[in-house]
């Protein structure tokens, strides 16, 4: 039987009288990247710190691959990109990566080779002999991701991997995660919902330290009703809603933001709703910007009742 890679039971954490996590229970299996979202102060970093063994929970049980966080059995199997953690400024990048590899049980030649490989993955092989203080924020973040890739761990916990990065570096980080996710399960904490929308098939939502009971699955293929998100150029909103509402199979049309419409429909009655929408737009001489299946992650997470 396939056992979960992470199990949390009745997990609580209190920081100087303030509840950071309250009765968190979940189990996660290996596979596609998993997103961890929530507003500031929701407890995302606390949860990842507990999973990484940096913080002891006030109460509750946590198991990674059947072992408590920080157990010797997890060395080399679990890696992390802690938020805002920086490398030692006294040593070169290569020296530190080799040291980390050796702590994971590699010989010196193996660790040297591995350090070179992970720097190649993040396209920063040329900075191996540099010291951390000479790197830009984006480069330092990528190097921190490189240390997490050492030894191909089975689980990598990434806390805000793209925070503060420019679009080019964000894309690089996204590519690295996508490339490595066939062999490694990533848990990614982020505020960037479009980022998670692209990378993750499953989302955990934390709000005020409480994990929402249903985890959100982004795949809607089995759902009885489906959604299409339509982004238009400037258009008459009321007219658009009225005309879309009139199409066969459409259950509801909402206009959550200016020029954005969410069409809820029954796939049994209208399996090609996207084509029908395009025809309707064309017939009315409207201009559209984007049409995508499903709701945006933002809609799913924070406006679920609408």
């Amino acid at each position, binding site marked *: 039987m396939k056992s979960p890679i992470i199990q949390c039971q009745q997990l609580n954490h209190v920081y100087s009288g303030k509840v950071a996590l309250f009765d968190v229970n979940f189990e996660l299996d290996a596979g596609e990247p998993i997103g961890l979202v929530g507003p500031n102060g929701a407890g995302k970093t606390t949860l990842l710190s507990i999973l990484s063994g940096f913080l*002891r929970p006030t109460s509750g049980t946590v198991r990674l691959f059947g072992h408590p966080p920080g157990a*010797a059995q997890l060395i080399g199997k679990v890696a992390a990109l802690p938020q805002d953690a920086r490398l030692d400024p006294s040593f070169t990048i290569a020296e530190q990566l080799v040291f980390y590899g050796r702590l994971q049980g590699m010989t010196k030649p193996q660790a040297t080779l591995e350090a070179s490989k992970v720097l190649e993955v993040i396209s920063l092989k040329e900075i191996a002999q540099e010291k951390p203080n000479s790197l830009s924020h984006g480069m330092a973040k990528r190097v921190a991701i490189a240390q997490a890739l050492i030894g191909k761990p089975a689980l990598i916990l990434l806390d805000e991997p793209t925070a503060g990065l420019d679009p080019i570096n964000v894309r690089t980080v996204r590519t690295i995660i996508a490339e490595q996710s066939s062999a490694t399960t990533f848990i990614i904490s982020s505020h960037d919902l479009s980022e998670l929308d692209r990378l993750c098939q499953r989302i955990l939502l934390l709000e005020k330290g409480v994990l929402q009971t249903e985890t959100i699955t982004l795949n809607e293929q089995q759902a009885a009703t489906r959604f299409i998100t339509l982004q238009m150029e400037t258009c008459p909103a009321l007219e658009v809603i009225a005309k879309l509402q009139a199409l066969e199979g459409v259950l509801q049309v909402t206009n959550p933001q200016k020029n954005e419409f969410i069409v809820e429909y029954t796939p049994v009655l209208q399996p090609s709703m996207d084509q029908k929408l395009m025809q309707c737009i064309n017939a009315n001489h409207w201009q559209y910007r984007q049409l995508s299946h499903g709701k945006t992650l933002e809609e799913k997470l924070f406006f679920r009742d609408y």
Partner: protein
Amino acid sequence: MHPGFFKQLLLISQFELKRGFATRKGSLSVVTFVVVWYFILLYPLRFATELLVQEKGFKQDFGFLDFIGFGSLQHWPIPEFGVLWQFVLIIFPMLSITIAADQTCSDRERGTLRFIVIRSSRDSLFFGRFVGVMVIQALLICATGLSTLALVLYRDATLFSSALPNLFVITFNVILAVLPFTAMMAALSAKVKSARQATLWAILIWTFLAGIISGFAYYLPALDFFKCLIPGYQLSDLAQLSEWQTLQLAYIPLLQGLVLLALGRWIMARQAL
């Protein structure tokens, strides 16, 4: 204790040695130490020794040395080591508070410890850093001993065989003397945010601990035993001893070191990184 504990401890302590001698900050500290020690060796130590060797009235004057607390100088067969003994018993414990202050605190504040702890146990980290700092201090202590030996041999090369046991006793004793100070700094470093805070806390705790215990012991002599808890408690008695007698008090720093390391390990295991 997991199977890789000692291997990781060794790797972490080796990395500390590299930090102590092969980084810019480390080499600068070593160079500073060498310069300061060179001047101590060249002036106070050499002149004091010459005084002891050449002063014909030395035997009659030892009462004065007793009076100022340096009576044991006359008991060392080689005066250089007598003077060295008095110097290193003061210098190295004080130096230890500075050298050992940043065992984990700045790395914890920077987040660097997280990269290490995800791939090693907290015990390996705590004891590895402690061992690394102890080895750095032991090498500095050996260097001071060897430089003093060179001074002895420069004066009289025939003293080599009789100087070696003295050198060994002093080196061993001073390493033991810095042990509880290093363990105290390891415990403090596991808790506070910077090396500066660790040093300040060490001075405050040491002063208050000494003051409070001595105060209570004045009224209740039975509490005198608790003075053993103060790192360096034995140093004033140790300074009065010479040669192999100095090992009589070796159990005190050993016990203090064990207690402080256990306390530090307890703090480290609970500390948020």
